[in-house]
């Protein structure tokens, strides 16, 4: 609507200025028309330069951050740094490498996605495919649906430390569960953190699947669930996977939540199923090194590994979704 208005305003403005120019041309001859053109050219050049400078500045700031961390980190990162565990203990944790934090991060990412992935995707399917049928009606279920939708919106904007506090209160220290600082406390809290990300990305992807696919499937006598599972979800896969991979990045880079739920010991859980052990993710390791032991060079090294990981993840999103789209679309 507003786009239409804007466009018609544009047209009006253009025709007005065209009339204006015609008038100028007839009244004052072509010299004034030329100055007007020169003035517009000047503004155009000025705007162009401004845009260029903004673009360059943005890229420069970005490159400065990434470049500085990677350059600093490169001084300490080598195979040994990646494969030796940190020495442990507050005073001595500037000795050794970062191997166990990589392992802890992988375990953490695994469980977070195992919990939040299916839950988020199924919730998104519910919101798009099933809940919208009841929208506009009154009663308990429509009310519940609007509450869920509202909650997802709000959760996406809640600062992560709030999730941390919630996880600490509910999983770490509560008398009932009493999971203390552990892989499971961290994974469940992390899942809460990324759930809104996965729901929103999946919701958008599912909603973008053309109605004609659904109609085509239902018209063949497929049930609604078959339609959703076999047609809608595969067509939405690139978007859903993007949401999940983004969540992986979010878990890898998150600090506050895991500071209050994962513990921080340099020892990694023994296996991915060692749910009751605490651990320290890479991002958390950066924090400990920088703030507790003042081992800035190693913090930079860990930070560099972290940044490179995030960059690789983002690149993989592009590759995966392009491949999937190509396979589905045939082009």
């Amino acid at each position: 609507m507003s786009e239409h208005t804007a466009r018609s305003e544009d047209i009006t403005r253009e025709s007005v200025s065209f009339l204006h120019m015609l008038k100028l041309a007839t009244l004052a001859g072509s010299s004034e028309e030329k100055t007007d053109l020169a003035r517009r050219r000047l503004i155009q050049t000025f705007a162009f330069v401004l845009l260029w400078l903004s673009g360059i500045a943005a890229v420069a700031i970005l490159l400065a951050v990434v470049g500085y961390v990677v350059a600093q980190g490169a001084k300490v990162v080598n195979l040994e740094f990646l494969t030796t565990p940190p020495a442990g203990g507050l005073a001595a944790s500037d000795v050794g490498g970062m191997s166990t934090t990589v392992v802890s991060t992988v375990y953490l990412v695994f469980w977070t996605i195992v919990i939040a992935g299916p839950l988020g995707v199924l919730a998104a399917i519910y919101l798009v495919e099933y809940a919208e049928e009841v929208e506009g009606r009154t009663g308990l279920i429509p009310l519940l649906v609007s509450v869920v939708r509202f909650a997802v919106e709000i959760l996406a904007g809640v600062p992560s430390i709030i999730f941390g506090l919630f996880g600490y209160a509910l999983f770490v220290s509560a008398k009932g569960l009493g999971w203390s600082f552990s892989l499971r406390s961290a994974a469940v809290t992390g899942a809460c953190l990324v759930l809104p990300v996965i729901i929103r990305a999946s919701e958008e992807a599912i909603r973008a699947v053309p109605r004609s696919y659904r109609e085509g499937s239902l018209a063949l006598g497929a049930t609604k669930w078959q339609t959703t599972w076999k047609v809608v979800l595969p067509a939405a896969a690139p978007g859903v996977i993007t949401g999940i991979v983004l969540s992986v990045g979010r878990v890898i880079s998150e600090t506050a939540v895991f500071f209050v739920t994962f513990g921080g010991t340099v020892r990694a859980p023994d296996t991915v199923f060692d749910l009751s052990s605490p651990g320290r993710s890479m991002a958390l390791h950066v924090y400990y090194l920088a703030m507790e032991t003042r081992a800035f060079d190693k913090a930079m090294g860990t930070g560099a590994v972290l940044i490179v990981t995030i960059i690789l993840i983002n690149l993989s999103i592009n590759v995966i979704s392009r491949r999937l789209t190509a396979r589905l679309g045939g082009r």
Partner: protein
Amino acid sequence: MEFEDVKLETAGYSMYYGDFQALRDVDIQIPRNRITAVIGPSGCGKSTFLRTFNRMNDLISGVSVEGDVYIDDQDVFKMDPVELRHCVGMVFQRPNPFPKSIFDNVAYGPRSHGMRDRAELAEIVERSLRDAALWDEVKDDLNKSGLELSGGQQQRLCIARALAVEPDVILMDEPASALDPVATLKIEELIRELKKTYTIVIVTHNMQQAARVSDYTAFFMMDEDNRAGYLVEYGPTGRIFTNPQHEMTERYITGRFG
């Protein structure tokens, strides 16, 4: 019109989108193994009427109906819609193959109905593609995405997909309106071929198409006051086009309105 062998029938059928009446009091009998064309100006409820027979209108919220609709003397509103759509296939206005391979597109219906046997599926896929006159063009790349085909091929793929579930009836909602003339002729040829085995109801905007392919023609109009669609005239296509009983039908088929 009364028929010996009636496949589809409506009696006093009215349909509403919320408060808006889309169809009023439609009584019609559609004969088995014949092609029945539904013609009429835009907005007269042709598509809505067509979508009655596989209950696709159920998907729209706020729809309500009056009167009865039968398939083989069974009340469609008492049937399970999934079961109904098993016997009543549909081809849409715009080709809508799934973003899957050609094979998977055709196998989708049978698989949904529980068919798992690979050899049998392959047989069904081949037979359906042959019946839809597409086999020779695609037999070497059944793994290619259905979306890679041309518009006309996509529409024939959608027809093959509908045939694969072995329906009795095929509903076609302007199946050639998005296609070029050559592809349109192919589809029409195919439709004539299909009537040996299927009862076909086809909605079309194209008068010549209705005249070329159909055995019977139903002409719908909308009420000037409340825009509700109703059946004006129904009969053998030859008679409708050469000797229409209603002035409105004559004006429409001679292109004086609509």
